[in-house]
């Protein structure tokens, strides 16, 4: 396996981008990443793009070719492939790009993630997202994602005494981080009281426990470490571990609904490959589609003991100044969650932190970061561990 580095990153503003098309968003993120990397179109061996449901959100399938076309590369005939794994689509696309370079097949790969979710109304967006659940066993009976994660939260509360206040504190922390991210959808601080008194969505989750519906795109340029210096003099960020795992599509089929086994297995794979343990991780971007998801994630990634996620939040372990900062970008909660773009946006944040160009949300000298991207209620998980070189 060859070593692979992130040599360029690009991201659009996340939010309700009424005046930008799907095509414009992909081109904007891609061109930013290419400019950042120093590569030229003719250097690119392959493209991968993560998108969960462009067909339902904007009526456009066949987006592998579209992204190459929108980027101005149609004349170069670059192999371009769409990757789909619900909200983990972006992370999976990163892994495909990574594997294609690590295997020796390619040297330079662009990986993009895109979702434009606001062109349909709220009900249609919820229905489309619910296609990531099990149609026969869950969605058909009316279950939506807030409902599934609410069941996980209820059970977590029952088993471990996790409280609504602790859930609220996750949202408060991520909004505090999002204020410092110019690309975040919601650059505003919230209070625990505000989170606790927000409109109910699915008990115990309120509106401010949920990530929003978002338009946005992100892209990175991956390159073999041996060729990277041909293109850039910027600090390289190496992907030192890549893990992926799957689980039952339906929540009820799982061994436990408070542990995402896909996270546990993907993390073990990435830790083993990188020869790192949870304690070696300086910071992480985790998949906080709902506040309970972040609490489960920090447990399942081994940052804290199972059941202690809520306590860890109380102890401020995961705040920006804590011992294990989580979601310095604002996370899905505040930065926004354009589902197919999220996994790529997480890699952008981790790379920026490790390169030292995260602006006023820059952590003090981090060495190792982790990105954790989940599809559905935990049927797919993809994790990358990255190190500054």
């Amino acid at each position, binding site marked *: 396996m060859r070593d692979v580095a992130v040599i360029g990153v690009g991201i659009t503003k996340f939010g309700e981008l009424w005046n930008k098309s799907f095509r414009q968003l992909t081109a904007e993120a891609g061109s930013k990443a290419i400019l950042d990397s120093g590569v030229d179109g003719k250097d690119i061996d392959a493209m991968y793009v993560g998108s969960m449901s462009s067909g339902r959100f904007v009526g456009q399938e066949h987006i592998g070719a579209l992204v190459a076309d929108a980027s101005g590369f149609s004349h170069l005939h670059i192999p371009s492939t769409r990757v789909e794994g619900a909200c983990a689509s972006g992370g999976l696309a990163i892994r495909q790009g990574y594997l294609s370079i690590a295997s020796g097949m390619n040297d330079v790969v662009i990986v993009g993630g895109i979702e434009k979710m*606001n062109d349909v*109304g*709220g009900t249609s967006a919820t229905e489309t997202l619910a296609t990531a659940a099990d149609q026969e066993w869950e969605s058909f009976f009316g279950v939506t994602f807030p409902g599934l994660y609410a069941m996980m939260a209820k059970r977590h509360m029952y088993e471990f005494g996790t409280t609504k206040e602790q859930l609220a504190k996750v949202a408060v922390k991520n909004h505090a981080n999002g204020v410092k991210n110019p690309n975040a959808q919601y650059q505003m601080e919230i209070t625990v009281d505000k989170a606790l008194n927000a*409109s109910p969505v699915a008990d115990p989750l309120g509106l401010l426990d949920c990530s929003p519906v978002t338009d946005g795109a992100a892209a990175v340029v991956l390159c073999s470490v041996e060729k990277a210096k041909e293109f850039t003099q910027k600090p390289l960020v190496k992907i030192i571990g890549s893990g992926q795992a799957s689980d039952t599509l339906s929540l009820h089929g799982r061994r436990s609904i408070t542990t995402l086994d896909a996270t546990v297995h993907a993390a073990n794979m990435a830790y083993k490959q990188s020869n790192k343990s949870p304690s070696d991780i300086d910071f992480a971007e985790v998949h906080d589609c709902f506040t309970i998801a972040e609490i489960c994630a920090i447990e399942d990634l081994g940052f804290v003991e199972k059941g202690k996620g809520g306590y860890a939040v109380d102890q401020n372990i995961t705040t920006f100044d804590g011992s294990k900062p989580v979601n310095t970008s604002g996370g899905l909660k505040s930065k926004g969650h354009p589902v197919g773009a999220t996994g790529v946006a997480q890699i952008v944040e981790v790379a920026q932190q490790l390169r030292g160009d995260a602006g006023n949300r820059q952590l003090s000298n981090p060495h190792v970061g982790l990105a954790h991207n989940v599809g559905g209620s935990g049927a797919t998980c993809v994790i990358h561990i990255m190190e500054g070189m």
Partner: protein
Amino acid sequence: MNDVGIVSYGGSIPQMRIKAKEIAKVWGKDGERISKGLGIIEKSVPSIDQDTATISVEAARAALKRSTINPQDIGAIYIGSESHPYAVKPTGTIVGEAIGATPDLMVADYEFACKAGTAGIQNCTALVKAEFIKYGLAVGADTSQAAPGDALEYSAAAGGAAFIIGSENVIANINKTYSFTTDTPDFWRRAERKYPKHGGRFTGEPAYFRHVTSCAKKLMEIVGTKPDDYDYAIFHQPNAKFPRAAARLLGFTPEQIKDGLIVPYIGNTYSGASCVGLAAVLDVAKPGDRIIVISYGSGAGSDGFDITVTDNINSFKRSNAQTIMEMVNDKTYIDYGKYAKDTDLLIWE
């Protein structure tokens, strides 16, 4: 020539009210929260015999009662509505006949979502200025539709206001009007469909707020005014949240919009909304008061008016017809069952 402006005006709001909480109860929603979120306590409901034609006639008659204008001197009638009773056959002819303004009369029905009423005021102003007509009657009125269970059901209401535009005995000069228009599909109702559709959150930022704030800014730039030059500001009011936010964005105070903000008590009267707001302000305005009106119609556009109240308001017979607030307070509550029956939500054979 003389200044052109509003010579008389009148309103019409159905008596029946349904509380937002009563609607929420039917759908298992938190009425308190919805009411607070929209800033709408209750909305007006048309009785089975009320429609845009009857509301327009009532409003026009109220305007005539407050003046000595001979209806035969009215040379044009424009009725703005998105609930004209007929798809083909004008509401304006019904109104013209009912007030005795026919037959030497230009008539057309207007539709531009919620701003067709103010579009009528603009046309009447132009016709009077051009001396094509002595007086023009512009009406904004609606018995607006909302699908059962839709978010619009809490706000879609009935009511309207009529304005007679002329150049003699003007009570409020229309100093300037300006419109900001784009093709923005935020809310629509296709032909032969009973209920409108809307683009959810798209109806906010790129639609209402862009048009209302752009129109207000450009109008103030043209006439050289700033927010604190105005005594009253009226913004289109689909709910109470939007006009309050628009006022804040533009630098107007809650005090400036208070008297023209009627939506909390009667809901959104669509083509009637900005017109009813203006009528409510004229009910209390004094000579010299400066008023800015910014309507909004989905699809989308905003009409802006810079208005100055004249000394003639002192001798104007406001008390010859009910004020808007008198109509607001003249009400009978109904439950959802009667609402469903009277607004044709029930299907039976």
